């Protein structure tokens, strides 16, 4: 942090500056993660909190998600005469793409907005200032546990979504579309492979980090008063969603070109 005497002013400078600060915060979070003492208590409380607000909605979203995949593929695959591959396609779609995204959207929407609102309220009540003045670094004390909590919960939720999604897809395929359970289960590993699960979890981890950092950034910099906190929450969710889909695209592209796919 150096004293800035003049600020550049050209179109887009504001956006660049905000982006820079966001990255600075992300870096601060990473650095402070390794600084003792680690706030175990806060971390566990936040994990519990985020899990409690996300588990039910995530599970409820995961079921129809699996179902939609099953229904779409079901119709298409019947026309192609590859019914036995329904399970394979569903597993691939759910584990590789749907699960981390659903997880991240829920963590950002339910957990991130709560984090943003909480930090925003603390900021405008000068609690964050007070904490700094008491010689406690709010990034280490408050932000790091929250970001780590979103990451952990995202990874765990990702597993839950994968299971629930696949079960939902199985239910719709077998019970409603009259598919054969044996074929569904047997084709599980026809297309999907173990690295798909890894990339799924890695995505969830990164998405959780992004959701946590963006929520913390917007929460620590609300613009003016209680209304600013509301706006900040809104923006944090929107920014996170945009970033998530972009990062998902990049990660998928990299993964597909680095890890050889089955059958190719």
């Amino acid at each position, binding site marked *: 942090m150096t004293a800035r*005497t003049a600020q550049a002013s050209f179109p887009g400078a504001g956006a660049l500056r905000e982006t820079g600060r966001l990255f600075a915060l992300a870096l601060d979070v990473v650095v402070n993660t390794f600084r003792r003492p680690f706030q175990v208590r806060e971390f566990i409380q936040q994990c519990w909190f985020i899990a409690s607000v996300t588990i039910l909605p995530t599970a409820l979203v995961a079921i129809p998600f699996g179902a939609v995949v099953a229904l779409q593929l079901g119709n298409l695959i019947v026309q192609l005469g590859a019914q036995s591959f329904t399970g394979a396609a569903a597993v691939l779609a759910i584990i590789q793409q749907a699960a981390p995204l659903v997880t991240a959207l829920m963590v950002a929407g339910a957990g991130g907005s709560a984090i943003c609102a909480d930090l925003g309220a603390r900021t405008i009540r000068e609690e964050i200032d007070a904490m700094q003045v008491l010689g406690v670094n709010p990034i280490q004390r408050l932000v790091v546990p929250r970001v780590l909590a979103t990451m952990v919960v995202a990874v765990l939720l990702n597993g839950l979504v994968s299971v629930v999604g696949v079960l939902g897809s199985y239910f719709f395929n077998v019970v409603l579309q009259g598919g054969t359970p044996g074929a569904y289960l047997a084709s599980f590993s026809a297309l999907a492979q173990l690295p798909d699960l890894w990339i799924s979890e890695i995505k969830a981890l990164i998405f959780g980090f992004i959701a946590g950092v963006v929520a913390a950034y917007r929460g620590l910099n609300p613009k003016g008063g209680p209304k600013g906190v509301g706006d900040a929450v809104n923006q944090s969710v929107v920014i996170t969603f945009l970033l998530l889909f972009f990062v998902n695209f990049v990660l998928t592209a990299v993964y597909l070109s680095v890890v050889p796919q089955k059958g190719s």
Partner: protein
Amino acid sequence: MGAEVVIEGLTKSFGRQTIWRDVTLTLPPGEVSVMLGPSGTGKSVFLKSMIGLLKPDRGRCEINGVDIVTCSERKLYEIRKLFGVLFQDGALFGSMNLYDNVAFPLREHTKKSEAEIRRIVLEKLDMTGLAGAERKLPGEISGGMRKRAGLARALVLDPEIILCDEPDSGLDPVRTAYLSQLLIDLNAQIDATILIVTHNINVARTVPDNLGMLFRRELVMFGPREVLLTSEEPVVSQFLNGRRIGPIGMSEEKDQATADAEAAHAAAGHADGFDEDLRGIVPQLEPTPGLPERQAVRRRKDRVMRIIHALPQQARDGIIESLTPEERERYGVARRPSPSPRPRDNGWHPPEAVAGEAPAEIARLPKSNWRTDPPDGSGGGA
């Protein structure tokens, strides 16, 4: 002894708007200073710049030889442990009760046992009159209590520098007086450097050793209390008297048209509710009897006597007036033969002192037993 704070050429602006520029002052170690200023002149911004919450554009702010404007973040967090800061609304942690709030700095920074923490916390809560409220959440108590709890939290680490952002706003006059007394007592006990930012005239007159005033984006004055209390500077005297007539207007600076209109009204007999002149040097608050003497008083006397020849005449008279004969001899100064320029009659007089020359009874309130019989008994009954 508290730390010395040296501020040089500090300038702060938000975007294109300058808040204040080139503020230069030194808070002498262990002394109590008050920074006055109309609302919106950046007093709180000044405090926040002093603790590195806001980055000034230029200038230095040295505490114990460390310039907090340019030092590293890690060093800044170290330096901040010397501070106790009372924020305007207390800035308590909303999710913790008062006990945990006050215990927070101890738990973060010390390895004290829970029993010891309990002792310290209860002592500070008792000091600020909050005993029994330790289980309450900040949302459940009044603004005045939040403020006192904020003070208790600022005090637990025995700070060397205490900064108070408007300790009186939202408090009734009695509690303000108690708080002023508490700050003076604290200063006597731990000899901390104290800076109070306020616009309460009473606090400004009775509490500090040094007074300063911010107005029109700069530091108008900063110096020993006597200098500002007797100042002829229009801004200072208007502010200390709480009048409308003067350079300070409703929105920061007054334009000529408003000033002329007000002058015309005043000439036609429309005045502020009172036109008593509140300036003049009033006795400073003393620590509660039984507490140690304030070390700062003697240090300040030595310091002020060294620069006394540079002070304005009225301040000089006031200072010399306040010395005891022995001190006058020690510093080699003499009282001016003429009486001090201002009638010093704004203290409270015990009834018998007045009874000698004033009419024995000015007004009699029906059924009032406040006033005892005049000492001579025979005086003018109705």
